[in-house]
């Protein structure tokens, strides 16, 4: 079997390798050639690990030759946001400062799980410094360009991961989402992104940002790939105090069931007002495809977004306080001033923010008594221009970088599982729609995505 011109799905790659129609080494070599050819323009990878990738690929091929099971992700090439520990590398998290850290002694837990299932790590990927941003315009590592329009950003903070998946420089990627950092770049780059329930996947070995809000999850070009990776990543880990320790609940076996009797609501209020015409049209497109016409309010979304904003500033600042005191000039200026301001927040605001978070979670639980799935745009607009300073929404001009997550932040604030699905409307850049479920119902959200993909309502487009 020869490799097709366009990118193969992770599922197709693993099936071909397990069926001895392709070798993992051939797939890895091909992926490395593509990265060599295209990464200079995209700036999606910060480090390419050719030696490791080929060694992991040869190990998969050897396992198959021995008659061993190479795993469900046999030979699937992937990258990780550069905040995941990779043995032998300093975990940069998009910073200069972390380059002084000693090399990681072992891989992050999720990287180990990918390897256990046969996946092949290609390298680490560009991000906003310390994950504090939505554009992946990084003063140290440069800007990741959007594969659909090189004058636009890829979104952030997992911009390198989403851009790599969209451009076929890897079949899937691992990323993190504190306030929208999987869903925003998924939206801008036109790929699928899963932010699981807070506490579902362990973050052990992923450089932290905001302990109360940090999630990890996959990006992919199909729902099937998203579920394939998500299933491989599941399982408790006692080293992450926030990991809920739930039993593995495989999603992949359930993707074939088209949900027919779901109660689906379209979020209005904040989620309508803070979206432009394209984002609203994308939600209508998904709602029409699902036959959903009921609009529903989620009271307190603005306050939840404010709570997430404050908690992020304060916890992120506390995490970096020693370096802010000692070497503030070494931070990306766009991040530094936000973190310095966060060090100054009075306790009264933070405690109120944490109580608002609880209250909003209860408000959302009440809405989920009447609905199974909620819909909202992933971003207020499609990909912004590189260097764009402001966004105009609902007649108000906002600073762009802190506000691209206006529609993701209220939801990750309370840890809901969400898939961002890519919508391509005629003549427009891609934009994402959030498929939002109640806590621990990732499988339901993925079922809805798979259904949407089957009927042609969503899908990742091939990049020219």
């Amino acid at each position: 079997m020869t490799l097709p011109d366009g990118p193969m799905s992770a599922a197709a790659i693993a099936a071909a390798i397990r069926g001895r129609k392709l070798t993992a080494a051939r797939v890895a070599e091909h992926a490395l050639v593509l990265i060599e050819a295209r990464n200079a323009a995209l700036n999606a990878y910060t480090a390419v690990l050719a030696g490791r990738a080929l060694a992991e690929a040869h190990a998969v091929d050897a396992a198959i030759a021995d008659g061993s099971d190479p795993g469900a992700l046999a030979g699937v090439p992937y990258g990780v946001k550069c905040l995941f520990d990779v043995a032998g590398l300093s975990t940069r998290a998009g910073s200069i400062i972390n380059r002084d850290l000693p090399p990681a002694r072992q891989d992050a837990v999720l990287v180990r799980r990918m390897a256990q299932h046969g996946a092949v790590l290609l390298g680490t990927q560009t991000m906003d410094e310390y994950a504090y941003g939505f554009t992946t315009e990084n003063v140290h590592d440069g800007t990741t360009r959007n594969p659909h329009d090189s004058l636009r950003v890829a979104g952030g903070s997992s911009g390198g991961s989403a851009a790599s998946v969209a451009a076929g420089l890897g079949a899937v990627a691992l990323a993190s989402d504190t306030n929208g950092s999987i869903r925003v770049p998924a939206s801008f780059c036109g790929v699928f992104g899963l932010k699981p329930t807070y506490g579902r996947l362990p973050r052990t070995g992923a450089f932290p940002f905001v302990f109360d809000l940090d999630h990890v999850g996959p990006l992919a070009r199909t729902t099937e790939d998203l579920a394939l990776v998500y299933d491989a990543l599941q399982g408790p880990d006692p080293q992450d105090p926030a990991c809920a320790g739930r039993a593995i609940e495989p999603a992949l076996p359930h993707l074939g069931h088209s949900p027919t009797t779901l109660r689906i609501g379209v979020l209005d209020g904040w989620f309508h007002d803070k979206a432009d015409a394209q984002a609203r049209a994308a939600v209508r497109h998904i709602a029409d495809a699902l036959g959903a016409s009921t609009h529903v309010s989620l009271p307190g979304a603005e306050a939840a977004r404010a709570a997430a904003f404050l908690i992020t500033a304060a916890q992120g600042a506390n995490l970096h306080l020693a370096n802010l005191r000692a070497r503030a000039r070494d931070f990306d200026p766009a991040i530094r001033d936000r973190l310095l301001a966060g060090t100054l927040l009075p306790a009264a605001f933070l405690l109120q923010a944490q109580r608002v978070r609880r209250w909003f979670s209860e408000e959302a639980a009440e809405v989920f008594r009447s609905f199974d799935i909620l819909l909202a745009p992933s971003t207020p607009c499609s990909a912004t221009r590189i260097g764009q300073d402001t966004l105009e929404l609902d007649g108000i001009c906002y600073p762009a970088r802190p506000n691209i997550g206006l529609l993701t932040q209220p939801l990750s604030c309370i840890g809901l599982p969400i898939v961002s699905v890519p919508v391509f409307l005629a003549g427009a850049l891609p934009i994402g729609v959030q498929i939002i479920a109640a806590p621990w119902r990732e499988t339901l959200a993925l079922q809805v995505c798979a259904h949407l993909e089957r009927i042609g309502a969503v899908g990742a487009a091939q990049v020219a």
Partner: protein
Amino acid sequence: MSDDDLVTILAAAIALPLDPAHREGVALNFGRLLAQAEIVMGVALPPETEPAPIFRP
């Protein structure tokens, strides 16, 4: 009191050195945080609403 004055006082309270070149950006961002704090503080919560984080010893 201006955001800049508040930044001066609060930075002193935690002995945070601020490079003069960074002050304008810090004050701008602190002002943005205060705007979000106003929204949060405007939510009337019942006394039984606990903070969200759960510590499991």
